[in-house]
C-alpha cells in the first residue's frame, strides 16, 4: 500500500459524524423573504444599489464592490425590496441587510440555465478574472476572501500550483463531498478556468481518503483533462487549512507571516471552483450554495442547495428538529460560529448549519493544566498552546508574540484534546486580538 500524503506536524482525529454523505443535494426551495447581508466576505461592505420598493430578478446586482478587497452581492430571488436596514446577524450584532419579498423565481436573461456541461474555455485570463469579480465569488470554505483578489497575486510572487481543496476536514460537513460527487466534471473545468486565469498548467484536487466515492470519480474524470491531478490525502484534522494542505500536497512550508503565494501555491475550495465554473461558463453570479444541514437534533439531516439569505431556521425546519435546539452552529463544529439568532441568513461562507440538542452541548469546568503536552503534540502549527495560555492569563501578550501566537490558525485542536478541558484556543484568540489591537 502506498503511503498517503498528509501534513507532518500535529493534527488530531475528531469523530467524523459524516452522516449526510449519502444524501443527494436537494433543492431547499425559496423562502417567502430573504435577508441578504451586504458584507458576506472579508473586506469592505458592498455599496447598495437598490432602494426600497425596487423590483429585482434572481441574479440582479443589488450591491456593488467599490474596493479590490470586496465582493458584489446579487439578489437570490425575484421580488420586491421591502427593507434595507440593520438586522440581527448570526452573532447577534446588527448587520446591514437587504430584505427581498419573494414572488416566483424569475431569473436574469443573461444567465444560461441549460443543463449541458460547457467544457470549452473561450475567455482570456483577464476576462475570466473580471467575470469572477462581477459574479461576486468569495472563498466558500469559510474565510470569504474575494476570489478575484486572490487570483491577482502581488507582483514578484510566482504561482506554479493550484490546489482545489476538497478535504472538508470539519466533522459533520458533507457539502463539498456531495458537490464533488455530483458536479465532478464542473469542478474540474472550474480548476482549468482558474489555471487559465493564473496562466499555469498544474492543478491538484486534494481529497481526504474518507471520501472514496468522490476520489474515485474525480480520478476517473481527470484522466480526460491534462494538467488536473488528484491527490488523495490521509484523513487528519485540520488538513483543509490552507497551510496544512499545501504541506500535505506539495511538501512545501509557508513561512510564518507569509502568504501561500510565497510557497508558489494557491488554494481554492471545491465549492469555489464550482461557483467559478458557473460564473464563467454559464454567466451565473453567486447567489446559491450547497449547505449541509445536520446535527444530532435533526431527524432528516441533508445537503441542500440554498439561496443566499435564506434564514437558518427555514432549513432547520426542513430537516425536522426533535426539540428546541440548544446550539446552532454556522459552519463546522471545530471552527464555525455559534449562532445566537436562528433567523440569521445563510451567506456565501456558510458551509453548514448544525443543530445540537441540550445533551451534546456541554463544556465541563476547566481544571488546572496537568502538563501532559497533548496540545503541543496536536498543534498543526507547532506552537505551545499551554505556554500561550499561561502568558495570556498573565497579560504578557508581547511574550506570547515571541512564541509565535500570531501563527495560530485557530483550528481548535488544542481545546479538543485537552484533558483538563481548558479553552486553549480561546486564550490564543485573545492573545492575537490583544497584539493586533496594540499595533
Amino acid at each position, binding site marked *: 500500500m502506498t503511503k498517503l500524503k498528509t501534513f507532518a506536524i500535529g493534527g488530531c482525529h475528531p469523530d467524523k459524524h459524516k452522516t449526510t454523505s449519502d444524501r443527494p443535494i436537494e433543492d431547499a426551495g425559496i423562502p417567502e423573504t430573504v435577508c441578504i447581508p451586504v458584507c458576506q466576505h472579508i473586506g469592505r461592505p458592498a455599496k447598495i444599489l437598490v432602494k426600497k420598493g425596487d423590483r429585482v430578478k434572481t441574479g440582479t446586482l443589488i450591491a456593488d464592490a467599490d474596493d479590490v478587497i470586496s465582493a458584489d452581492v446579487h439578489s437570490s430571488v425575484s421580488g420586491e425590496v421591502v427593507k434595507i436596514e*440593520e438586522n*440581527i446577524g448570526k*452573532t*447577534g*450584532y*446588527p448587520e446591514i441587510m437587504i430584505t427581498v419579498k419573494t414572488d416566483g423565481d424569475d431569473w436574469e436573461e443573461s444567465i444560461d440555465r441549460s443543463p449541458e456541461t460547457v467544457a470549452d474555455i473561450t475567455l482570456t485570463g483577464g476576462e475570466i478574472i473580471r467575470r469572477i469579480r462581477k459574479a461576486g465569488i468569495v472563498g466558500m470554505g469559510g474565510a470569504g476572501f474575494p476570489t478575484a483578489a486572490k487570483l491577482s497575486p502581488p507582483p514578484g510572487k510566482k504561482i506554479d500550483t493550484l490546489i482545489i481543496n476538497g478535504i472538508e476536514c470539519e466533522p459533520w460537513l458533507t457539502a463539498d463531498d456531495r458537490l464533488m460527487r455530483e458536479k465532478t466534471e464542473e469542478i474540474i473545468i472550474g480548476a482549468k478556468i482558474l489555471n487559465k486565469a493564473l496562466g499555469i498548467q498544474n492543478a491538484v484536487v486534494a481529497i481526504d481518503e474518507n471520501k472514496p466515492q468522490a476520489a474515485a470519480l474525480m480520478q476517473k474524470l481527470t484522466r480526460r483533462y491534462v494538467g488536473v491531478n488528484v491527490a488523495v490525502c490521509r484523513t487528519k484534522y485540520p488538513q483543509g487549512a490552507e497551510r496544512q494542505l499545501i504541506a500535505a500536497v506539495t511538501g512545501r512550508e509557508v513561512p510564518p507571516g507569509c502568504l501561500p503565494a510565497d510557497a508558489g501555491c494557491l488554494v481554492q475550495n471545491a465549492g469555489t471552483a464550482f461557483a467559478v465554473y458557473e460564473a464563467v461558463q454559464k454567466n451565473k453570479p453567486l447567489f446559491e450554495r450547497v449547505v449541509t444541514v445536520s446535527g444530532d437534533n435533526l431527524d432528516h439531516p441533508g445537503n441542500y442547495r440554498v439561496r443566499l439569505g435564506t434564514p437558518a431556521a427555514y432549513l432547520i425546519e426542513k430537516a425536522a428538529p426533535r426539540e428546541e435546539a440548544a446550539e446552532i452552529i454556522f459552519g463546522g463544529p471545530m471552527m464555525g*460560529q*455559534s449562532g*445566537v439568532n436562528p433567523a440569521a441568513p445563510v451567506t456565501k461562507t456558510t458551509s453548514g448549519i448544525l443543530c445540537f440538542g441540550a445533551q451534546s*452541548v456541554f*463544556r465541563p469546568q476547566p481544571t488546572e493544566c496537568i502538563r501532559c503536552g497533548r496540545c503541543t503534540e496536536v498543534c498543526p502549527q507547532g506552537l505551545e498552546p499551554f505556554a500561550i495560555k499561561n502568558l495570556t492569563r498573565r*497579560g504578557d501578550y508581547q511574550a506570547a508574540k515571541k512564541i509565535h501566537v500570531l501563527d495560530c490558525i485557530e483550528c481548535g485542536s488544542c481545546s479538543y484534546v485537552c484533558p483538563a478541558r481548558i*479553552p486553549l484556543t*480561546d*486564550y490564543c*484568540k*485573545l492573545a492575537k*486580538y*490583544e497584539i493586533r489591537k496594540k499595533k
Partner: protein
Amino acid sequence: MNELITANVIVLSAIALIAAVVLYYIAQKFKTEDNPLEEKIAALLPQANCGACGKAGCADFARACVKADNEAFAHLYCPAGGSKVMTAVAKELGFSTPEHEPAVAVLHCNGSCRNAPDKTEYIGLKSCRLANRAFVGKTGCPNGCLRLGDCVTNCPFGAIRMDEETGLPRVDPDKCTACGACVRICPRGLYEIRPRGKSGVMVYVACSNRQKGAVARKNCAAACIGCKKCAQICPEITVADNLSHIPVSVSADVYGEKLAAACPTGAIVCRRTKGENND
C-alpha cells in the same frame, strides 16, 4: 593533609582577591549617579506602577517630577495617589500644590440581570474582550456590558467587584483611584473617568446603546431611547445617535435628581459617591 588545606586556602584567597579587585574596578568604571531625591519622591508614590500618570511606572514618574520646573509640574498628576500624594510630592520639591479635581470610574451601562435578562448562554473563556468578538453578548445588546469581568480582574486596586444581584461590575468609590485601567480594558468602552463633583453627587447616562429606542428596549428595560426629555430640562445635554450625553459641566446638585426622575427608562443615574481618599 595539612599541605592540602594550606594549598586550598592560598588558592581560594588568591581567587577572592583577584575577583575583589575586578569587581571594584568595574564598580568604579560603570558607576551611575542615583539621585537621592528621586528615590525619596518614589517612596511617597503608591508604587502600584499602574501607568495611569502616563509614565512607565512610579520610578519614571518620580524622575519626571524631579526634572520638572514649576510649569511642567502642574501637568504631572498621580491619579492613583490623588491630591494627598501630590501635595506631599510638591512639598518635598518646593512647588505649590497643584489643584486637581478628584474623579471616579463610572460604568455607562445599567443592563443588570433584571433590566436585561440573559437570552443565550456563553460557555467559552470568561473574557469580555474575547466574547465581544465572538458574539453580541448574553443580553443581546450590542453596546452593553458583557458581565464577564475583565475590568474586575484587571483593576490594580481591587476597586471593582461583580455584584451578584445585578450581574454588573460595581466600582467601590473608596478604593477607585481613577487610574483608568478599566477604561483601557473594556472592549466596549463603557467606563468613563468622571469628576466626583464638589459635593460628591454625580449624574450620568448609564447606557451606551446607539440603536433606535424600540430596538434597544427589546433587550434592556433601562436603555436610553433618545427621547430628549433630559435635553428639555438642561439645554447643555446633547442627544446624538439615539443616545443622550450629559457633559461633566452639568451640575449634579442642580439637575441631578430632576434628570433621574424625568428619565422614562431609568437610564440616567444620580449617585452620591462618599469616597474621600482623593481629598
